[in-house]
């Protein structure tokens, strides 16, 4: 079937089965490989993208069910994204790095909802994103730092 999706601000047409998870449409058909496959069952968060600015697990979201604008790591923008990515680099958060696109997409969505999250808020928001390298402490510190820099910039 032909589906028209709005991805990173552009209308894109793909011809795939309707049960195809958005993840594989993004990766295989649109060649947006920054979004990663980790589990296929929405248990690890590596595939997190934004749909209408909400973090969604693209591996368990059939393309036929997608409604709204999709944003991937390649195009995530705005002050929160900028602050989060800068903090990620400043803290050298990534180790293997494979889960980090998903971590960042979730963190950006958190800061948009909650500009000054507590440790507890961070843990709740990020608990669906597994990092097998266990970079969690740096993820937490980087989100706090991003929040601080957003506060200063505001």
């Amino acid at each position, binding site marked *: 079937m032909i589906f028209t999706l709005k991805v990173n601000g552009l209308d894109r047409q793909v011809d*795939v*089965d309707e*049960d*195809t*998870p958005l993840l*594989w449409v993004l*990766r*295989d*058909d649109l060649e*947006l*490989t*920054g*979004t*990663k*496959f*980790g*589990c*296929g*069952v929405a*248990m*690890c968060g*590596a595939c997190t993208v934004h749909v209408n600015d909400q973090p969604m697990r693209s591996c368990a979201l059939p393309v036929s069910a997608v409604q709204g604008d999709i944003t*991937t*790591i*390649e195009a995530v923008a705005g002050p929160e994204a900028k602050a989060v*990515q800068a903090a*990620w*680099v*400043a803290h*050298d*958060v*990534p*180790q*293997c*790095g*494979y*889960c*980090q*696109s998903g971590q*960042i997409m979730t963190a950006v969505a958190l800061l948009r909802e909650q500009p000054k999250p507590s440790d507890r808020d*961070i*843990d*709740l928001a*990020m*608990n*669906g*994103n*597994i*990092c*097998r*390298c*266990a*970079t*969690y*402490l*740096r*993820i*937490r510190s980087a989100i706090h730092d991003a929040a601080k820099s957003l506060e200063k910039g505001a």
Partner: protein
Amino acid sequence: MNAPLSRRAILQGGGALVIGFLMPMGIGRLAAQAPAANGPPPVDPNAFIRIAPDSTVTVLVKHIEFGQGPFTGLATLVADEMDADWAQMRAEHAPGDQKVYANLFMGMQGTGGSTAMANSYLQMRKAGALARWMLVQAAAKSWGVKPEQITIKAGVISGPGGKQGKFGEFIETARTLTPPQDVPLKDAGKFEFIGKDRSVGRVDSLDKTTGKADFSIDQWTPGTLTVVVAHSPRFGGAVASFDASKALAVSGVVAVKQIPSGVAVFATGTWPAIKGRKALTIKWDDSKAEARGTAQMAQAYLAKAKEPGIQAKATGDIEKALATPGATLVEADYVFPYLAHAPMEPLGGYIEWDGKTALARFGSQFPSFDQPAIAGVLGIPPEQVKVEPVLAGGSFGRRATGDAHLAVELAECVKAIGPGKKVRLTWTREDDIHGGYYRPLMVHRMRGAVKDGKIIAWSDTIVGQSFAVGGPMEKMMIRNGVDATMVEGSSEPPYKLPAFRCAATIEQSPVTTLWWRSVGHTHTGYAVETFVDRLLEAAGKDPVAGRLELMTDQPRAAAVLKAVAELAKWGEPVPAGRGRGVAVVESFNSFVAEIAEVSIGEDGEPKVHKVWAAVDCGIAVNPDIVRAQVEGGIGYAVGHILYGEVPLEAGKPTVSNFNNYRSLRIMEMPEVEVTILPSSAPPTGIGEPGVPPCGPAIANALARLGRERPTILPMVKSA
């Protein structure tokens, strides 16, 4: 196509943009340190550094980067010796070429045993020093001054009369020079980056933050077919027959072929391949498959552990000491489960084959095994196979396989679909968790005796599978019937014990097993450190002071233990409801002591609040990467000690994905505080050594809370 690189080839083959350095002498001397003294001489390694006209310096890293930091670490060594500016440094993977890029400790190209920094420390500094020498000579020649008048600071070359230039300006002149056989290395007192905390950031952080970093799963070219393989649900099972008609009816499925490891479904994309595989009907031949469950296996191993086993090491008369009249006898049977590594990126890779040559791009951890394995399957000479390692999304040991099974499967897939094709193989998470190559199921039967406040006897009998048996490293790993990686840590505990015995028995199973972050220490560290804690408790000794009394000839282990006790303020009151435990383990020539602070949560699960760690890994080239590895190692340890287990029932794994192979999540991550002991000793391992002391420290903390130290892992059994 993969002929040894000559200096000339580098200079010409790389076009006008690159420069290479020849340094046979320095390397020759280093090679003498390698255990494989008769291995291939690491000649002509002039492709370690490339300088571009824009002055960027690219370090070709012979170790695969999967998070542990060799890209940054090896670039640090080169940058310091070259007096480069950190901003001009880059890193990329060296191609598979054992002649040039052998791991000097292994005599083959491979990453493992936490050796990346240890074996590259002098080699890469030497490469950097030679590069600097050539730039100095070239600048002197260009400016008509003496080399002694040239200085380099932060990537800027300066000469008399205010002359200044950057590296890229001198590569044409440097190209014409013949480098010396040896140049002196920088004095440690003059290091700008090595050992200087936060003097450099990771070279890969930015790409891993913007989605630009490419992993195995991101490798394909136009026209590439995606393939997934249906593997036997039981270990050792084989395809008896299959019906592909429904799979072939799935839109996007191109072909279905039987290969030695199962049934391969070829499709135009990942989803059709996965759907096609689901539609297969396969009859499996289980006649040679493992039929036992892990409960049965553990029981059988424990029974076996009552037999003497093959002695790895002994002192004194152990049975007599254990029977000492009036002594307190302490016994414990430990069971360690199968563990999957579950790297964040499941296995996979890309291969193209034209009938005569092949190119494979994937997270190859052992290019020296992967390249001939692919060649063997395709029936072409190894030199016709090009292996290009790429970033891997974690490994924890999983990608370092003696049998090169992933490379073999990759090659079998492309062979099955025919020459002139390109395929990318993707394992799903279920393939990964069911896929074996586990940390082996292991048991330890521990017996000890205490009398008059002293440990007088210690016996440790280990039973489990050896992943060395039948593999290419069997001769290196198994000596006199004992697999060194099964008993490491147990055969030489850091404690003075008057009567001591460590023995092991190797069991067989079709279940495939493999090293798993910190290898034998994953179980020996736990068994030894919880058992010594129990014995010290029986002896009425403090866990720290008691250990120190027994560490008479272990200054480095004792030093990290003292340091962690100081860091955590051991002995001072702890918050109500919490207990602390300590452990210290030497692994990969590094020493790590950890203290864990633990409580019992409302759900009855242990909650690890904080872990303090003291580390002696020789010179910490990048202190922040050392810290990151210890933080991550602690997280990896906590997750698996608490939750990790791949149980088998009738030979089949009962877990399959992160819903039931429970992984540590951010809420369960303890706070971590790391202190790195200053050292002038050569760098030793750090990717793995943070793991082993953590589990026993948690168990020993539970003992302070009135619980037993768990002997059957994981601590939290899933419902």
